[in-house]
């Protein structure tokens, strides 16, 4: 498989568009998820209230992010959770590697964590002879295939039952091909059971980290997150710094907004709250709990009032499920860990605008993402802002963004200046449209990129201004 990269967005998107299976798998999945979400928010008044509350919580918590992180560290430490800070993916990997090596770990059982994808943890540990095994069913399937997640909450959504059966046939002993979902899941669970028992270290993400109490919350449906955070001797939780919330009472509105937006569930099957390692007299739980807090460009997003809104994200995936672009090209085409609309606004902070600068243009700005975002992130407005940042150097009044101006294009800038000049000089503008009309008979039927599926638009013989003049109305 060729290396996926946001720089190869266009060929990757073309490849996906050319696959009827991918198109069909995504359309079906998106239809299902959209319906589930809309059923979960069937009462618009109640929905507005839930979403307004969730947005307010995220805004308030982010506005005091540095202080909350300090409190979180204090409380966690007081509870016996060891806190580690990582500025870069390399630092996060080094911390996790050191912990695994100290345990002499051969196997890490991993619950779902997008941050671990962000830092490339599996590959890093594999290079050291440590097997990092995904235990979320979707991630498990994707890992067996040597593939990567295509959606942040449903990693294997690009695959249908037949494809999953083929994967299991290839990798699981004694598995017989089936299209029965229950049998597929049972086979996967059987294979995973053994991993939980054998793993020396369990690794998970974090959905919400509560500063007030030093509690790490984990939202999941399969029970694998609970296994990873209770069975192995050491539990490592890794998360971005933006996931901190102020108090326990902030959780309920965020949890409700998250599960309803993501899968249409009122609540998930499991909700785990990790407040400390195993205490004396307790029967289960890890003996050590570590929290790794990753920055990786987040403090850059935080520094700008407008772009800070990116960090409100609670990773529900609703923006992807409603995005007409994501729904047609799927998650892999983006070449980023976070695909879809949220990926287009967060990736520039993680990777820089030089690598990810084309992504903000890959949107028709239809606004569906902003409409469904449960925490009110104005995604279209942020896309527009990032387009400005990608085209121009450091702008006054804004902190610099990594790779600012990387997509500057002199020809395009000149064309825009020309457009603006014409639009401000109506006589010249009208002369231009006059010329466009005169030349219309000579237009080719198919015009460049536009003409691959559309005929060239034909100007009317006379413009409105002329018709009005003829009617003596102006």
């Amino acid at each position, binding site marked *: 498989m060729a290396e996926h990269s946001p720089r190869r967005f*266009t060929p990757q*998107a*073309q490849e996906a*568009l050319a696959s009827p299976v991918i*198109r069909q798998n995504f359309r079906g999945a998106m239809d299902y998820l959209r319906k589930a979400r809309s059923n979960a928010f069937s009462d618009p008044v109640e929905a507005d209230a839930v979403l307004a509350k969730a947005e307010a919580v995220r805004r308030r918590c982010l506005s005091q992010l540095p202080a909350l992180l300090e409190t979180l560290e204090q409380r966690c430490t007081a509870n016996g959770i060891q806190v580690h800070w990582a500025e870069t993916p390399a630092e996060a990997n080094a911390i996790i590697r050191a912990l695994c090596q100290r345990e002499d770990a051969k196997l890490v059982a991993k619950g779902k964590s997008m941050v671990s994808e962000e830092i490339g943890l599996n590959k890093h540990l594999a290079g050291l002879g440590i097997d990092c095994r995904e235990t979320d069913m979707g991630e498990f399937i994707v890992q067996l295939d040597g593939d990567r997640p295509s959606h942040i909450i449903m990693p294997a959504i690009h695959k249908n039952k037949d494809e999953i059966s083929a994967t299991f046939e290839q990798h699981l002993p004694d598995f017989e091909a089936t299209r029965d979902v229950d049998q597929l899941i049972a086979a996967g669970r059987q294979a995973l059971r053994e991993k939980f028992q054998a793993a020396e270290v369990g690794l998970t993400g974090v959905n919400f980290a509560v500063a007030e109490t030093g509690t790490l919350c984990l939202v999941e449906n399969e029970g694998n997150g609970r296994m990873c955070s209770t069975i192995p001797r050491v539990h490592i939780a890794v998360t971005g710094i933006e996931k901190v919330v102020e108090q326990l009472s902030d959780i309920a509105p965020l949890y409700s907004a998250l599960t309803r937006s993501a899968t249409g569930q009122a609540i998930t099957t499991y909700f785990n709250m990790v407040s400390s390692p195993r205490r004396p007299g307790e029967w289960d739980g890890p003996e050590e709990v570590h929290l790794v807090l990753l920055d990786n460009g987040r403090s850059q997003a935080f520094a700008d009032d407008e772009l800070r809104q990116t960090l409100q994200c609670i990773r529900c995936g609703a923006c992807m499920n409603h995005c*007409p*672009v994501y729904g*047609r*090209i799927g998650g892999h085409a983006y070449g980023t860990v976070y695909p879809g609309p949220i990926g287009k606004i967060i990736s520039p902070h993680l990777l820089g605008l030089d690598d990810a600068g084309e992504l903000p*243009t*890959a*949107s*028709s*700005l*239809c*606004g*569906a993402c*902003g*409409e469904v975002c449960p925490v009110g992130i*104005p995604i279209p*407005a942020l896309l*527009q802002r990032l*387009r*400005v*940042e*990608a*085209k*121009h150097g450091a702008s006054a009044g804004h902190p610099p963004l990594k790779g600012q101006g990387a997509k500057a294009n002199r020809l395009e*800038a000149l064309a*825009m*200046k020309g*457009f*603006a000049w*014409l*639009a*401000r000089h*109506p006589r010249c*503008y009208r002369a231009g*449209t006059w010329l*466009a*009309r005169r030349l219309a008979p000579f237009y080719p039927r198919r015009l460049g*990129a*536009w003409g*691959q*599926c*559309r*005929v*060239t*638009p034909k*100007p*009317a013989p*006379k*413009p*409105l*201004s*002329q*018709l*009005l003049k003829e009617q003596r*109305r*102006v």
Partner: protein
Amino acid sequence: MDVIRVYPAKPAHVYLYATCLVDLFDPQAGLDAIGLLERQGLAVTVVTGQTCCGQPAYSAGYNDEARAVAQSQMALFPEPWPVVVLSGSCGGMMHHHYRRLFAGDAAVAAFCERVFEFTEFLVQVCRAKLDDKGEPRQVTMHTSCAARREMKVHVTASQLLGQLAQVELVKHGYQEECCGFGGTFAVRHPQISQAMVEDKTRHIVNSGAPELVSADWGCLLNINGALEYQGERLQGRHLASFLLERVGGGHG
């Protein structure tokens, strides 16, 4: 953006901002819109000198250029009359995004308050009552995304069609989904745009409605171009033209 808008009383005089696409591709829609507004008893002024709202520069990330264009357009409307815009996306640009381009500028904010999309204006300000004089007809409607999500015009456009006794509004599949135009998006990412417009036209054709209307010429440029390329006879037209024809004021 979801602030509830307080609408003014019906004025005696309005400006019509026809938009560059109507001017160039469908000037009749501009005349028809004037006809409808005049039937509401309004004096309509179309300012010579209007060009484009600046959206192409804005959406491509050229805010300085967009600001320069915006300033030149706002200067065309010195009287305190409402500015009625014949497109949801240009309306969205002038009502919402000008405010963003000139953050904190009270004069610009006051101008933005005067901007109304055409169907929004007919329903919310004029309280227009349309008397259908046409034959029974089925029609399907495309609402542009900016119109739908910024100006909430899908509501008012449907309300106007709903007033027509003999017209049946037929829904098509994925009505709320983008047609794939998005201005420069269609040129920058032509394959993705193609996938979107081909799905959109298929759903429109599958609706079986013999007529397609939209209150946005940007989308129509995209959809009509694709329909014609596919050899379909169906061509969308501006809602203003359809409405005027229904109330018996159409051009022969």
